[in-house]
């Protein structure tokens, strides 16, 4: 909490009532005649045309899914197709006013939205720009397919390009917008401002907030529309996204041109169902979704329900809401009422709704009704409207024919290039700054109080006379992280950092102390206690082109951001066909002393997920060098820190941690102590317990251990470890993670495979117990201790003369523990 805002008991204890204003529901009531001043005849007809294209596209997919045929073309599509037949007016109305600088995010049911946004972009772009975009998208491959034999205008060509790119993506063809790696539920096309759809319900709920932050923090033009379903209102990340998007600080604490609300519309495509659950009357309690806005902030999120069955009503709302955003009074909540005639998916038997209900909505079908209104108002003749419908069918048949042909539209060739997908998991670039502006800072770096204070510190754990330096004078691990972070803040104008207590507090563990003085609010701010959104917004910020450090205060809170860390952050680079980058660093602090929910090392969980880089430094030198690399890269990095050793000094790198910039490449383990008799590989702070064990081994048993600090879990270069094992023939692996399913087991297995013939004993993992973590006073029974390592060597690798084991590492005990699951 900032000191600038006092909380006065007299104010907050004063009796009062909260007054809610009125939330408009379906208030649009203009006729075509009245709208003629806002739309030309062409506009009216174009709206109709775009709705028809979407209807035909979805109808085609429905026929393919249910009958394997459309207009005589046979095809089997085993993958998903969540269709939006019935929702065309909502999609076209949403996209109508948007320019290419305006970004939309979607859901699993967003074919209609991406087509509507694409058609809108095609209308607004001039021909040169349009052609340029198509020509340069993946080398113009998709363009060359639709261009062949086509002699119409560039805009007509672009419509074909859009339909082909989207359909090829749905059918997993390499010419798809994302090389077929995104598919139906994830297709996107950033040159038209179409950002990812998301197969996880509400997945866009916090990612889109990050995109809006990107626009705001980097002063980029345009607004962000988050298209999600009404049922996603039940999802935590959506609430967290809304909380994050409506923080008071935007209007109260952010300064100057950065002051004001986010340019963001939460547009709930309210088709009244979440799969088969009725949000109105069954699974939610809001009745009318727009009601939610009333409770969020005094502006009631400018919430409104609009008639998504009338494209003009939707367009009207988006025009009005954009004005609010431009006045920096966002975000806005729109409840765009619509109805899905098609099932949730083609296998949907509609067992949860009546035939009468569907028929009633079909009777007021948006396309038919709008067409009749146009005809009645003399805007378009029925023949023209009919022609638009039949043309759409022919066009889609043509596109379908191109798409299903394996010669014209092959899939990624994983036979000739087996690593095609693997090579897209990471972008692996080295980029100083994501934008070229001058970074916004509040003072020259050398005047920063923390920077000045660090200057006086001893950068090695011993002074020039070889005596240990006092804690107060020691350059600590937290200083190493700080130096890397502040350096990047002064290099990369897009870099922003957020998390809980990141600003005035200086981070819960004082890593960021000094940053508050250096950085304006919009580059460093406190977030709500919303771990999902802390990561989700970072994802949105990163995929739009910004670099970001998000912080999870305790590793144990990582579970709160499970979907974001497991399903979103690691996926989007590869699912975009490697088009977008994800320069996102998530700092995760591993605790101790605070028991079962504040002391867990979950590095193994994230290391399991393909698409994340995972780092866990244990020394100041490594922390600085690895953070520099993480912040220089373009990939998501989960950066683990241990609260046990934030204050540790540099004990390995002589003469101390360099003052200047340097990088330690991710993936390179480091030999912290060389030896010939046994290899001990460690992850994280366990390094120091292992070094104690190594001293005992040397002193008591004459065994000279080689201690290797993994430093990084993913990627990992096994060569130095294998080389060591070839020498010693023996390896112990140790970390604070609970031993079952620990990443050490993965490493042990890989070492076994790569160095089997050199092993004199099986690799032995020494991890924490598979218990809850007890109180600090009992932690020595839970976390690996030096004695455990000696015992493990004695019992499982080579008996040590005169050693008496304090642990039961017997065969029977191992079987028993596994049998019992502890």
């Amino acid at each position, binding site marked *: 909490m900032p000191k600038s805002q006092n909380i006065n008991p007299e104010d907050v204890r004063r009796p009062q009532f909260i007054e809610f204003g009125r939330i408009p529901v379906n208030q649009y009531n203009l006729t075509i005649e009245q709208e003629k001043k806002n739309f030309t005849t062409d506009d009216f007809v174009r709206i109709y045309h775009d709705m028809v294209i979407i209807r035909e596209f979805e109808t085609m997919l429905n026929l393919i899914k249910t009958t394997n045929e459309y207009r005589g073309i046979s095809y089997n599509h085993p993958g998903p197709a969540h269709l939006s037949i019935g929702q065309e007016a909502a999609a076209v109305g949403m996209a109508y006013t948007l320019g290419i600088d305006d970004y939309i995010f979607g859901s699993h049911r967003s074919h209609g939205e991406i087509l509507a946004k694409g058609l809108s972009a095609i209308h607004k772009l001039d021909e040169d720009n349009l052609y340029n975009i198509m020509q340069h998208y993946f080398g113009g491959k998709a363009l060359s397919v639709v261009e062949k034999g086509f002699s119409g205008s560039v805009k007509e060509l672009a419509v074909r390009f859009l339909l082909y790119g989207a359909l090829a993506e749905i059918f997993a063809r390499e010419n798809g917008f994302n090389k077929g790696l995104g598919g139906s539920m994830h297709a996107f096309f950033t040159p038209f401002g179409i950002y990812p759809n998301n197969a996880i319900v509400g997945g866009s709920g916090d990612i889109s907030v990050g995109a809006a932050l990107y626009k705001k923090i980097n002063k980029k033009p345009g607004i962000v529309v988050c298209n999600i379903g009404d049922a996603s209102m039940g999802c935590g990340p959506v609430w967290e996204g809304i909380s994050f998007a409506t923080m008071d600080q935007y209007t109260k604490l952010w300064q100057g041109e950065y002051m004001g609300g986010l340019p963001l519309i939460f547009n709930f495509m309210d088709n009244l169902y979440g799969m088969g659950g009725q949000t109105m009357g069954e699974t939610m309690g809001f009745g009318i979704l727009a009601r939610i806005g009333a409770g969020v902030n005094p502006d009631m999120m400018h919430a409104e329900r609009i008639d998504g069955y009338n494209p003009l009503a939707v367009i009207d709302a988006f025009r009005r809401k954009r004005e609010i955003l431009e006045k920096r009074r966002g975000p806005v909540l729109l409840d765009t009422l619509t109805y899905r005639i098609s099932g949730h998916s083609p296998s949907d038997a509609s067992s949860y709704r009546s035939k009468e209900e569907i028929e009633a909505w079909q009777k007021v079908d948006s396309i038919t009704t709008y067409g009749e209104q146009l005809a009645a108002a003399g805007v378009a003749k029925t023949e023209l409207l009919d022609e638009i419908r039949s043309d759409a069918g022919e066009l889609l048949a043509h596109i379908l024919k191109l798409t299903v042909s394996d010669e014209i539209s092959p899939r990624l060739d994983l036979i000739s290039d087996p690593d095609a997908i693997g090579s897209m998991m990471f972008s692996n670039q080295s980029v100083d700054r994501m934008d070229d502006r001058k970074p916004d800072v509040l003072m020259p770096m050398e005047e920063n109080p923390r920077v000045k204070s660090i200057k006086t510190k001893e950068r090695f754990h011993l002074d020039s006379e070889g005596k240990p330096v006092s804690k107060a004078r020691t350059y600590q691990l937290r200083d190493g992280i700080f130096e890397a972070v502040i350096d990047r803040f002064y290099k990369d104008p897009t870099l922003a950092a957020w998390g809980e207590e990141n600003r005035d507090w200086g981070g819960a563990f004082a890593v960021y102390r000094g940053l508050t003085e250096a950085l304006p609010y919009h580059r460093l701010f406190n977030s709500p206690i919303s771990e999902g959104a802390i990561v989700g917004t970072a994802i949105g910020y990163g995929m739009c082109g910004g670099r970001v450090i998000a912080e999870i205060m305790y590793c144990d809170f990582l579970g709160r951001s499970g979907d974001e860390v497991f399903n979103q952050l690691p996926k989007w680079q590869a699912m975009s066909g490697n088009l977008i980058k994800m320069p996102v660093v998530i700092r995760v602090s591993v605790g101790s002393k605070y028991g079962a929910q504040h002391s867990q090392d979950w590095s193994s969980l994230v290391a399991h997920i393909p698409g994340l880089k995972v780092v866990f430094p244990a020394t100041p030198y490594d922390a600085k060098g690895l953070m520099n690399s993480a912040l220089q890269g373009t990939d998501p990095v989960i950066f683990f820190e241990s609260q046990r050793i934030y204050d540790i000094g540099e004990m390995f790198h002589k003469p101390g941690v360099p003052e200047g910039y340097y990088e330690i490449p991710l993936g390179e383990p480091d030999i912290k102590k060389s030896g010939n008799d046994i290899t001990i590989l460690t992850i994280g702070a366990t390094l120091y317990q292992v070094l104690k064990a190594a001293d005992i081994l040397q002193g008591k048993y004459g065994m000279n251990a080689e201690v290797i600090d993994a430093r990084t879990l993913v990627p990992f270069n096994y060569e130095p470890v294998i080389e060591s094992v070839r020498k010693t*023939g023996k390896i112990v692996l140790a970390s604070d993670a609970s031993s079952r399913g620990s990443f050490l087991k993965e490493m042990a297995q890989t070492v076994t495979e790569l160095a*089997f*013939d*050199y*092993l*004199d*004993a099986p690799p032995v993992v020494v991890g924490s117990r598979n218990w809850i973590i007890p109180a600090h006073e009992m932690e020595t029974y839970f976390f690996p201790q030096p004695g455990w390592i000696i015992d493990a060597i004695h019992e499982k*690798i*080579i*008996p040590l003369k005169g050693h008496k084991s304090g642990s039961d590492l017997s065969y029977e005990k191992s079987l028993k523990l596994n049998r019992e699951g502890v």
Partner: protein
Amino acid sequence: MAIPVIMPKQGQSVETCIITKWFRQKGEQVKTGDILFSYETDKAAFDFESAADGTILDILYPEGAEVPVLANVAVIGSPGEIIEATKTSDSVVAGKEERAILLPGPEIGNHDEKRQIPVPESGAGRIRISPRARRVAEKKGIDYSKIRGSGPNGRILCSDIMNAGQEAYTGSPLVSNGVDEFTDKPLTNVRKLIARSMHASLMNSAQLTHHMSADVRGLLEARRRIKENLSAGRAEQADITLNDMICYCVIKALSRFPEANSHFLDDHMRIFKSVHLGIAVDTPRGLMVPAVRNADSMDIVSLSRSLKSVADDCKKGSIDPELIKSTAASFTVSNLGNYGVEMFTPVINLPQTAILGVCTIINRPADLGNNTFGFVPYIGLSLTYDHRAIDGGPATLFLREIKKEIESFTL
């Protein structure tokens, strides 16, 4: 209740198996799944896992013994149990029957000596050795089966091999720069059997070799005529080789020296009434010695046919396992003449008592009579005999008898 341990039947045609090693000794505790002993047929080697927990009350066959399948080889139960009921009848105990040992194991003759078992009491039977130790042992050619492991559960560690190597291995290391200058190839089963039996033969018998040569002008003339007839397309002519003729002569000589047509069985000699002639055959799998049974009853044509037939069967791998046991033959001929070998010391296929090595033909000056000297083709004959069974005098006379048969050979 005491439980008998039964020698399994490995395949339809197998009637006996050889116990190659006992991993557990009488009186030891065993658990289900512990490996009790290893055994092999002529084609493969197997480990036998205990199917019961308990103490080994008795072991009924020593290492090296050939045991009829389904015979009881040991008894597991609680200490003190009466085990008479499970004991096998004397008739099947190896040694009382014909000692049908394919290739004798190293233990032949000293069954009663307890061997040191490499696995300590706590071990689960099989040899526990780390991959690294195994690799180093194989590289250095150290037999780790006798090494006592110092690792957990008696696991043999690399240091154990190095310590053993200091005693057993005196040469300098071949590898200096970490690059392997050779490849290690595991032994095939046949190779192991050959190695064991040859080594055992030299260790367990008193063999020596006499060399002599025989004038083969008659043999060569006979062979020339056979070839002529063959090239003239005379169908009735069998392709009788020099080797066939020599074998024929050997068989004849044997009938006059039955003590060479015998097995030496520690406490007695077994003199065979018929000649079962073993013939050394090189096969892709290694050396094999099939027997032509009752060869003395054959004329040269059928002998020739039989020799060819068993040799072919060995090469094809379809030889009847019974015929390649060392006990199947009463005497063996090994012919290296084709390879130009002038003299060698063949190794006896125990328990046979002698083996004749046939060498190449060399033209040597000889008295042709009337003070005329000329070159005469002589074939070298190297007779190795077991001095335990035969003395030098009779052996020489036997060899001379072969020479005589060869020199007087006619078709």
